[in-house]
């Protein structure tokens, strides 16, 4: 499963039970639309750290990295690549 689909599945099951997956596209705003409040964002961050064994610092959790599934996926891929290089 792609990172994007894993994120989508987590958000749907945890924060949008019963919602159709079609309504959660890669470019759907999550934080600016209120789908994820800051507590839910923290829940997602914790999930990503455990799922992909990455460490996400506080300053990286701003809306630039965490508003759309596509942005989050790109961020996760960058973190994974950086950790593999290190």
């Amino acid at each position, binding site marked *: 499963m792609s990172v994007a689909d894993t994120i989508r599945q987590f958000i749907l099951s945890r924060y949008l039970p019963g919602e159709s997956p079609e309504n959660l596209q890669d470019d759907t705003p999550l934080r600016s639309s209120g789908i994820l*409040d*800051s*507590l839910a964002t*923290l829940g997602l*961050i914790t999930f990503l750290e455990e799922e992909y064994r990455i460490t996400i*610092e*506080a*300053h990286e*959790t*701003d809306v630039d990295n965490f508003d759309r599934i596509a942005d989050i996926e790109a961020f996760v891929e960058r973190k994974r690549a950086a950790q593999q290089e290190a």
Partner: protein
Amino acid sequence: MDPYIDTQQEELQRAAIEFARGALGGSRVQADREERFDREGWRACAAFGVLGMVIPREYGGLDLGLTSLLAVMEGLGYATRDQGLLFSLNAHLWTNSIPLLLHGTEEQRRRYLPRLTDGSLIGANGASEPDAGSDIFAMRTRATRDGDHYVLNGTKTFVTNGPVADLVVAYATVNPKLGATGITAFVVERGTPGMTVSRCLDKMGLRTSPMAELIFEDCRIPAANRLGREGRGVQVFECSMEWERGCILATCLGVMRRQLETCVAHARSRTQFGKPIGKFQAVANRIVDMKVRLDTCRPLVYRIGRLKDASRPAMQEAAIAKLYVSECFVKSSLDAVQVFGGYGYMTEQEIERDLRDAVGSTIYSGTSDIQRNIVAASLGL
């Protein structure tokens, strides 16, 4: 036989009742009037083991489990009139001892837990702010990293134990734009330059539990005193609140039991219109409601004990317990005043004080409305 605690826990509860009748007994009318914190009572409770029952032995605790502690707390609530002291003990346990145990580094645990457990340190919680109460994550207190320190600036209010605290678990944001993901927890020791008690707060109830406003002004905290990761203070806070909401009302169960027994005795002995007032349905029904509330509250609190003793989450269950028990506690406290009539309204009878103390239970650790929000969210609403 009690359906919620085993025989050993029943014995502990009886011992707690006997202890409290001796060490914490007597009238608290004057102490309430003077907002006097009972330091001797605090030490006695620590010596009895109250502060160590859920702490592992390696950190000076007794490792008896949460259900045992809840049974003891219920016993203390039954036998002492000093609900303020019990509130202070609760604040200390759920906002300092438990977060340090579950989120602290090994060094932090070894440094603080033995002294939090033997009562030589008193813990306080610095979370609420003048403009961040229910909306707690809107806090403005800033933590700015400066080398191997953080510099804290801001104001904390409604800090239980604030005036007497040796240790404050304080929350601050490293960047307000990050919201919850910027909040970070710190352990601040009494005497740290830049942390001051700006004023003591006068309350309606729980007056023997001191409360204050704290100011952090360029207060430098070693990074080693950060509790949990930077930006993960919400996890520490939520952990603290889960335990606090689920457990803080165990003492109130004891008060409700005492109120019930006192009201039954009064209704049987007080005669009006030629017969005991308990023979009037209006009075009897009120007392029956008190009994029903007590019997429906106890399983909710002891459910938290069972869940936590099994290392299971209890966020929803804790919110339900907090919501229901606090609302019942207020109603039963008001009913007790009504059963006693004019005597219940008099300060010297120590019945009206339970009502003043009870009102706070629907506010502290998250108001009843916030508890409903938590349960609604857990239902996917």
